[in-house]
């Protein structure tokens, strides 16, 4: 247990020591998105009856920040350790594979939660956006950041260089995030795109979180919960398998 806690705290310290870059910067960029879209679109679109566009956008942006930061935390930690070589200290230690996995993912959840909470609190200064069902919202933040934490671990282990990780981020994480309904409801899309959107696991995270936020969503939150949990299970199994087999870690 001590081994796991040590690695977990080390991972927290790692991002906390550079919190301006890892917590404050994402809050600022999310807020910029919000202010820009608010000025352009607020008067023109009403997504759900009685729900203004900004109110619809806030949970999307909060969840986007959560997702991106949870992924960034585990992936950048692993790739930095791999490239600088200090990953040997973890590989030499008697830490179990599950302990390593849990420590990285839990640290990702904490960073996701912190950034998400930060973004939300700042939006409250400008907009009135109460949480309707906080338990549901929290559940999706935790599951979503755990899922991205696991995916970050996989991407970090798989990448040999920073540009491979950047490619993972630019060609997988970013498109899946932008096409998941952060900025729009998928119901506004043509049928073909709607169908495709439902294949995107990120859609369920955003929609589920939006349910917790607004009390309304595109699909049932139970379906979202099921999909997100399944994805988390699959990614966790893969990440633990990679750690156990020593894929790209133990030559």
């Amino acid at each position, binding site marked *: *247990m*001590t*081994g796991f*806690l*040590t*690695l977990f*705290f*080390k991972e927290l*310290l*790692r991002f906390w*020591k*550079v919190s301006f870059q890892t917590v404050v910067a994402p809050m600022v960029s999310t807020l910029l998105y919000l202010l820009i879209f608010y000025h352009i679109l607020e008067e023109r679109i009403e997504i759900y009856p009685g729900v203004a566009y900004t109110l619809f956008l806030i949970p999307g942006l909060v969840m986007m920040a959560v997702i991106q930061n949870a992924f960034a935390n585990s992936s950048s930690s692993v790739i930095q*350790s791999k490239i*600088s*070589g*200090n990953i*040997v*200290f*973890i*590989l*030499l*230690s*008697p*830490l*179990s594979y599950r302990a390593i996995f849990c420590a990285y993912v839990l640290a990702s959840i904490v960073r996701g939660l912190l950034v998400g909470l930060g973004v939300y609190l700042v939006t409250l200064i400008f907009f009135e956006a109460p949480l309707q069902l906080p338990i549901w919202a929290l559940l999706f933040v935790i599951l979503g950041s755990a899922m991205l934490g696991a995916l970050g671990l996989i991407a970090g282990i798989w990448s040999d260089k920073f540009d491979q990780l950047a490619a993972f981020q630019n060609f997988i994480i970013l498109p899946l995030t932008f096409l998941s309904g952060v900025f729009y409801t998928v119901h506004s899309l043509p049928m073909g795109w709607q169908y495709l959107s439902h294949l995107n696991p990120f859609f369920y995270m955003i929609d589920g979180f939006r349910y917790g936020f607004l009390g309304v969503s595109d699909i049932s939150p139970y379906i979202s919960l099921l999909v997100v949990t399944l994805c988390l299970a699959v990614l966790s199994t893969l990440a633990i398998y990679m750690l156990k087999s*020593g894929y790209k870690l*133990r*030559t």
Partner: protein
Amino acid sequence: MLPAIEVQQVRKCYGALCALTDIDLTIYSGEFFALLGPNGAGKTTLISIIAGLALADSGLVKVMGFDVIRQYQQSRRNLGVVPQELVYDPFFSVREILKIQSGYYGISDNDAWIDEILERLDLASKADANMRALSGGMKRRVLVAQALVHKPPVIILDEPTAGVDVELRQTLWAFIRQLNRDGHTIILTTHYLEEAETLCNRVAVLKAGKLIALDTTNNLVGKMTDGNVLRLKLDPDVVPPGLQALQISHAHGVAELRIENFEQVETIIAAMRAARIHIVEMQLQQPDLEDVFVHLLSNHRKDDA
């Protein structure tokens, strides 16, 4: 004696290139053991396999009786490794690093031992400095400290003195000798053969992934019967005909004679006196591990050919 490290039939290939072929090696508890070999001989690969940083294609490796694959947690708990590369985590200070490292091994309160290691390695004044601010030699000592936080019975040092200045090297070896006296098994690789010769009781020599020698340091050096050389400065600078057979070289006013045993020195002096040749300077060179090493590697090369 209890084996600290057992390596049985270990093979490791990267594609067509085999870094290690069928290595068998047992290192006993309490030994001070040197693993020697030219660059690319497979020393680091073997150490990595013992430490679990690399996976062998076949064969069995145990640390203090624990299989490095099936009982990896116990085997790693018994092992401290000082890696060859100067790796460090730039986010933390020396003390933080050592506390974190202790935590990985499940030790939560380790301050007394950490202070002692810092003291012994002459790092106490740098305890709160960030790793980035340390010189190469200091970073190397932090690596040694990291390998010791959990007081492992077996310690492996891969080129621990590379880039460390003479004075620090002495401090480091004094500390490691002390650890060996306290019962720790020490395994090291080094390019400084005189270090291996003075410190280690047993030596293994690797070449191109094969074990070409494994014996006590004394036996290896003792086998070098043709290694004793008498260096003479003579006046006049002539070697008497009766001694020509022993001559290895004669240049720049120095004659080198090969001797099989020390009684021969007497014969040589007598022969010089008889020929009225005055001995200005005399030096006896005995074989050292370096000669053994060169001899082994060149013989092995002949065998290959």
